[in-house]
């Protein structure tokens, strides 16, 4: 009898695992959002998750709002504006790729069918530079973070609306790749993104409260007090991997672009509000 019960239990576990792996992106997104709604019912309206950890920590939020009155990323926006408007050797500028003010945050990340890959804003910035004979920028900080900050600032209020086109199975594969990455344990500490930012979100690791993943992609690039400078989302990905003693992947490589694709899709409907200040 015990054996039968055990077999049935194993069967059910197997079925639930299969169901989890075959659920479509929209089912995933609904379940993801519901998870955070149930975990943090005090966050109202739901759009407030765009403020990261400050959406769940009222005391820290007050301090953060004071910081935002004289934001430490202001200089980066000014520097980014200069870079954005700078005329290339061929007479063109980033405006020729991204419009007059670069307010295109809502267009990224997106699936590029012709190239069969996820395009991010930072990758598009460098491709614009290279296409015009200019040197590409380093992806994690510095000038890239500055120009990205300027474009994000001008895009504030735009809404994340990532699509996974149904007519290209490679897009779904890229999404699934990012999803697998998010839920997979890595590094010597054996942590998945989901372990910290989902299943223990709101709890403390030493003195720091772990932020919810719902809303993670809204506010980049950020000025982090720990860094004492600006950094991009992929810099943060790499930092997280380093923290769990896993070798980080290449910024703007396929692994991180697919991860960005997945977490952005999960946060569909939230507003972009970058750049931001973080601890």
């Amino acid at each position: 009898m015990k054996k039968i019960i055990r077999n049935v239990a194993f069967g059910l576990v197997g079925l639930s695992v299969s169901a989890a792996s075959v659920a479509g992106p929209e089912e995933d997104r609904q379940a993801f959002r519901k998870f955070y709604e149930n975990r943090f019912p005090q966050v109202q309206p739901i759009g407030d998750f765009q403020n990261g950890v400050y959406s769940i920590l009222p005391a820290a939020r007050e301090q953060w709002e004071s910081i935002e009155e004289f934001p430490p990323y202001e200089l980066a926006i000014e520097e980014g504006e200069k870079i954005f408007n700078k005329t290339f050797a061929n007479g063109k500028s980033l405006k020729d790729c991204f419009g007059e003010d670069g307010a295109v945050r809502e267009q990224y990340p997106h699936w590029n069918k012709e190239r069969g890959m996820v395009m991010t804003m930072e990758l598009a910035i460098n491709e614009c530079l290279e296409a015009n004979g200019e040197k590409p920028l380093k992806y994690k900080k510095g000038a890239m973070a500055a120009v990205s900050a300027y474009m994000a600032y001008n895009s504030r209020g735009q809404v994340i609306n990532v699509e996974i086109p149904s007519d290209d199975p490679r897009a779904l594969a890229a999404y699934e790749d990012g999803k697998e990455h998010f839920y997979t344990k890595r590094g010597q500490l054996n942590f998945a993104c989901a372990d910290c930012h989902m299943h223990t979100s709101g709890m403390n690791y030493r003195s720091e409260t772990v932020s919810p993943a719902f809303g993670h992609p809204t506010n980049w690039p950020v000025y982090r007090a720990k860094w004492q400078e600006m950094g991009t989302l992929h810099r943060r990905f790499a930092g997280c991997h380093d923290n769990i003693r896993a070798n980080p992947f290449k910024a703007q490589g396929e692994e991180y672009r697919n991860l960005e694709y997945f977490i952005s899709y999960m946060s569909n409907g939230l507003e972009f509000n970058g750049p931001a200040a973080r601890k």
Partner: protein
Amino acid sequence: MKHGLKSLALVALIGSSTAFAGGHGKSAAALIEEATAGYKQVSKETTYQWTTTVKVIKAAQKALDGGNEAEAKKLAQQALDLVEATRQQAQVESQNWKMRVPK
């Protein structure tokens, strides 16, 4: 039957420990080479690499260069264990991640 299973598990545990400690007869240089090759192999086959493994391999090499064979052997063995643990993580996680997806 329960005792039989316990004994089997114990034998398996001892067997695996013996397998990990199989480098006792080898020189530190050979163990370092083995750990480096193992690390590269796991890197080639999976996307799982631990930052600690390279650090321990480097520490083992440093100990060997400094003439401390015993310390070098100890560290190289530790690196081999890290390589094996990485390999097992990759194997286990190839399926287990699915259980963490909320439904």
